[in-house]
């Protein structure tokens, strides 16, 4: 099957998911609901589903960009410490209780973006400092920084009161339960700006995937392009983490699966990853809502579900390391 047709099918699935997911939840609500049910459908479930789709798409896209840039299947917002950098930025702001908005974008989102950007620059800088550039060093320093930042978050939590502490813990597990239209409004600018930057760079990402020296020899301004990729990925990871907390595994999983189905050319891989990430997180989030209806218990953070599905996938990926998943 030709790739554009596959993309069209994926787009159809995405639209279907977006249309059907709001209907499902603790209780099924039909399209033509009225009164209170209609209110739940349009002002609670609809923005939440949109948030889930946007967040999934953003995490998947940033994972795709990192994997191509570093030619490594394990390079993701998580393993590079970008997620925890964003989380640290956001946690600091929650703790300090600083609340202001710029054009409707909350300070927490901006803090998370700055945290994400600083951590990728730190990880990359550390790797360069060691003379030359090696992927093992990159991943090791990413993981080290990730742990360091996570400890700092725990420390902030330790210093916080009970309410704030609970707030931080719940958010750290990755959740969409607080999503509403204002949260969606906070996600969209990050999605649009980051997505637009990346969408201009599909040829450059292809060349980075072949190798940085090849990218240079074909005329890519690698310094500038790298900075743009860092910026775009930080915008998207920061944007998501501030709203939903660090939701794991989508950034690693979605680009891999899409590369197997749609091929590695970023002109097609990028829209595919965008849609796939969105669909995946929307389905996971819908599952958590349905589950909480079945158990009539508290809602499972969606991060738990993505990691439950992502963990086994990670193992399969490692076992197939020699196979076609190689970058």
């Amino acid at each position: 099957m030709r790739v554009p047709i596959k993309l069209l099918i994926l787009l159809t699935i995405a639209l279907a998911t977006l249309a059907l997911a709001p209907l499902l939840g603790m209780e099924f609500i039909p399209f033509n609901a009225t009164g209170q049910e209609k209110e739940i459908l349009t002002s609670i479930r609809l923005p939440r589903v949109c948030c889930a789709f946007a967040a999934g798409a953003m995490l998947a896209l940033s994972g795709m960009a990192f994997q191509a840039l570093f030619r490594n299947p394990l390079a993701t917002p998580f393993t590079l410490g970008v997620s925890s950098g964003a989380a640290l930025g956001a946690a600091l702001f929650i703790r300090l209780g600083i609340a202001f908005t710029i054009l409707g974008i909350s300070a927490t989102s901006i803090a998370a973006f700055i945290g994400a950007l600083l951590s990728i620059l730190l990880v990359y800088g550390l790797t360069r400092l060691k003379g030359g550039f090696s992927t093992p060093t990159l991943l090791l320093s990413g993981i080290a920084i990730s742990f360091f930042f996570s400890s700092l978050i725990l420390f902030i939590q330790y210093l916080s009161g009970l309410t704030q502490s609970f707030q931080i813990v719940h958010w750290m597990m990755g959740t969409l339960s607080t999503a509403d239209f204002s949260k969606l409004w906070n996600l969209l600018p990050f999605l649009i700006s980051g997505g637009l930057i990346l969408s201009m760079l599909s040829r450059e990402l292809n060349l980075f995937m072949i190798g940085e020296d090849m990218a240079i020899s074909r005329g890519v301004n690698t310094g500038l392009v790298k900075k743009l990729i860092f910026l775009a990925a930080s915008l998207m990871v920061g944007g998501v983490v501030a709203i939903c907390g660090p939701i794991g595994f989508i950034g690693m999983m979605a680009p891999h699966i899409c590369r197997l189905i749609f091929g590695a050319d970023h002109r097609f891989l990028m829209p595919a990853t965008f849609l796939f990430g969105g669909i995946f997180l929307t389905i996971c989030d819908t599952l958590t809502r349905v589950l909480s209806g079945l158990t009539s218990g508290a809602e499972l953070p969606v991060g738990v579900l993505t990691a439950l599905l992502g963990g086994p996938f990670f193992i399969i990926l490692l076992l197939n390391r020699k196979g076609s998943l190689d970058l």
Partner: protein
Amino acid sequence: MSSPIIQIENLSIHFSGNPILKNLNIDIEEGAYVSIIGPNGAGKTTLIKCLAGIYRDWNGSIHIVGQNSKKLSSKETARLQSYVPQAEGRSNPLTVEELVATGRYPHLSAFTSMKKEDFDAVDAALNQTGIATFRKRRLNSLSGGERQMAFIAAALAQDTQILLLDEPSTFLDYKHQAEVSGILRKACREQGKTIIAVHHDINMAAACSSKVIALKEGEVIFTGTPAEATETQTLNQIYDTSFISSPSPAHPLPLIITGGSNT
């Protein structure tokens, strides 16, 4: 006589204090096939990477087609010369066709997509290298030889006057070695391309080239014709080991075999 297409003057580079290239002066004439030979660690790959613009922290000057290479943008450089890296570790999930299409990058602007002339250049490169039949296959499903052909095709699609190749035939089987040297010689003879290739195999270097340059410890220790390069004494000096020269039944140049201990 016309001025050289590549003019290297006093080229030096060092990595963390270790000099890798020391004051190289090399002129390369248009349409020449220049082989760079020398022992491991002589600086051959470094020289190619300096030329390709991958290393930029060198001293001295490099002029490409009369222009100071430090003043050219990376896209301008990429329209003058293309680069084929060493073959190992080059596996990735792109298809052959997608890889070859990356050769058109310097000819496209950020807002335009590939035009007919770009697709034609890709097709021509695929045909020239004889790999059009597996254009849809992914690189990580190919053999090392087939993959190398794809990288050469990508460089040809870049449509440049100068081709820089780092050990284009190392690790390849005999069939692919012959194919690679055939394609390169043809590109040089029929399309007038200037080729600079690092070669590990001295017979290959001699058979292909119009000029041989030997590097040792970051310095040029020999420049001459293939006939001069295949003199055993010269080779002995370059590689610090002895060689046996045997008249070839098929070529004017002798066959070179290493002669074991240096006696």
